[in-house]
């Protein structure tokens, strides 16, 4: 699909040919939450997009300062990116642990890796499922949710919650893996590649889907870097940057996996299809990591390193990890004497990725904007915090 040049057409008579402002959202099915997009349109062609955010603002950062201890922030962290809560917890907990300077047991690190990767698969499944839904493919959405359900079941037997886990704690995890976890995980690892292939056949390589997404919303690598994009957004543009490889945390340096990048297989490098396909392939890589981690999982006690009282010394710390949506970072300042953080700042990948939306949607049609926004894969809980 070609971009349209914006011209003021000469129309006979006194027909107005000015640009028009159109509101999309905050209650719009394809904005994935409460996001209002102010569109400046010339006919059907988008001249500019101005995202208005803040409808879901819950003062996460201020709340974190009001808590009585560091542990209490974790349920709030969960509610940032609520479809990838494990990843948020992980980043926050690792930041606090860095501030405390404690070393966690190996088993805990492996469990955390397994959980984070399962969460990545679950989150990407939701992303590609709803992306299909945005573009009119309903069946893959249901299939994605069916697979996601298996992961949520795994989480539920482990920590008791399906969405907001409060599982990863400072110094450990809340529960050890239950005895039936291994069997269920193996079942999932066995059946998932088959399900993924079905989704690929049905959606990824469907001609209509490709026509809607290829060559649409092209994000060149330099623009992506300038805007600070991360995660599949950045990798879709062909930049091989993944914190799990470039700045390994936990035990990620012990696993063999690739970093999929956009190759422009169906159109230009950095188009919507590339971003979508990076997510699909990342799921395969996550499967590899989980398999290796499960094989290497050492025995041990998951509670041994949990400190009685989390009271970090005075100082500040920034820690970033690779969340399904990109690079999530927590900046924590401790004043040294109180048991709660003095300041918590979260760097939310969705928020940063959303900022590039006007840049990549200029010149496309309104219908394409749905495809572009879906490929950015935002979670409004994280954008607004």
């Amino acid at each position: 699909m070609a971009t349209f040049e914006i011209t003021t057409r000469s129309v006979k008579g006194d027909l107005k040919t000015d640009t028009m402002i159109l509101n999309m959202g905050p209650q719009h099915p394809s904005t994935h939450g409460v996001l209002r997009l102010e569109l400046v349109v010339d006919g059907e062609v988008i001249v500019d997009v101005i995202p208005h955010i803040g409808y879901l603002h819950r003062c996460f950062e201020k709340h974190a300062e009001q808590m009585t201890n560091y542990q209490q922030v974790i349920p709030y962290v969960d509610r940032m990116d609520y479809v990838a809560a494990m990843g948020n917890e992980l980043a926050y907990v690792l930041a606090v642990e860095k501030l405390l300077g404690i070393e966690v047991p190996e088993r805990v690190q492996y469990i955390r890796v397994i959980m984070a990767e399962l969460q990545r698969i679950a989150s990407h499944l939701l992303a590609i499922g709803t992306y299909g839904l945005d573009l009119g493919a309903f069946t893959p959405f249901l299939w994605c949710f069916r697979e996601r359900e298996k992961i949520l079941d795994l989480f539920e037997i482990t920590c008791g919650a399906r969405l907001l886990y409060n599982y990863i704690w400072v110094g450990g995890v809340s529960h050890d893996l239950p005895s039936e976890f291994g069997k269920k995980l193996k079942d999932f690892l066995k059946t998932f590649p088959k399900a993924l292939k079905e989704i690929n056949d049905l959606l990824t390589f469907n001609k209509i889907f490709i026509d809607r997404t290829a060559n649409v919303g092209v994000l060149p690598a330099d623009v992506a870097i300038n805007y600070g994009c991360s995660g599949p957004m950045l990798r879709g543009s062909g930049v091989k940057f993944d914190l799990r490889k470039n700045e390994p945390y936990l035990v990620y340096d012990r696993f063999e996996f690739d970093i999929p990048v956009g190759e422009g297989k169906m159109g230009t490098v950095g188009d919507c299809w590339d971003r979508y396909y990076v997510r699909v392939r990342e799921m395969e890589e996550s499967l590899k990591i989980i398999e290796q981690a499960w094989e290497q999982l050492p025995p041990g006690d998951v509670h041994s390193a949990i400190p009685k009282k989390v009271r970090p010394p005075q100082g500040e710390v920034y820690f970033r990890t690779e969340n399904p949506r990109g690079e999530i970072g927590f900046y924590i300042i401790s004043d040294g004497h109180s048991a709660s953080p003095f300041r918590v700042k979260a760097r939310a990948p969705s928020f940063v990725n959303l900022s590039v939306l006007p840049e990549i949607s200029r010149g496309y049609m309104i219908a394409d904007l749905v495809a572009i926004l879906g490929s950015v894969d935002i979670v409004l809980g994280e954008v607004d915090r």
Partner: protein
Amino acid sequence: MRQYFKNIFVAIWTILIGLKLTFKHLFVRAVTIQYPDVKLKLPDRARNRLYVNIDDCIGCRQCEMACPVDCITIETVKALPNEDLGVTSTGHKKRLWVTKFDIDISKCCYCGLCVYPCPTECIYMTDVYEFSEYNRHNLIYHFSNFTPEEAELKKKEVEQFELEQKMKKAKPAEQVTVNNPENIEKKS
């Protein structure tokens, strides 16, 4: 022109692939269940409605402190020396009357942080997940054995007792300081 027809052919072909797949799924067993009639068994660790076994509560307020959303309200009254409250099932001695133990379950975020610090394991999450109410005030659960009136009585009783204790303490002290010359000397 050729490309045009090729595109149409590819589009139809990929749609047919999809249709074949979805047709196959007609004969796959459904993964959904008819919810109100059929219910899945929740795992042992399921975190749903909070429950407090008030007989085991020693009124230490650990859960109240741990709650990030402040949905637990506890009020306690000291037991008088002549009252024996017994021990909990875990062997802790009870020293406080728990006159109020309210959980506003509509505020609860089911994080489970209150469960872990409890020394007697009397607060825990159950697998009950259907507890909708027509009136929101019914979602404030009162776990204490005391009605508000009884709690008020108990409070007064203790106040009375403390007042008496004070009087008792104050009286001999006065006598000591006034009547005993040794004490006066020591003080000066």
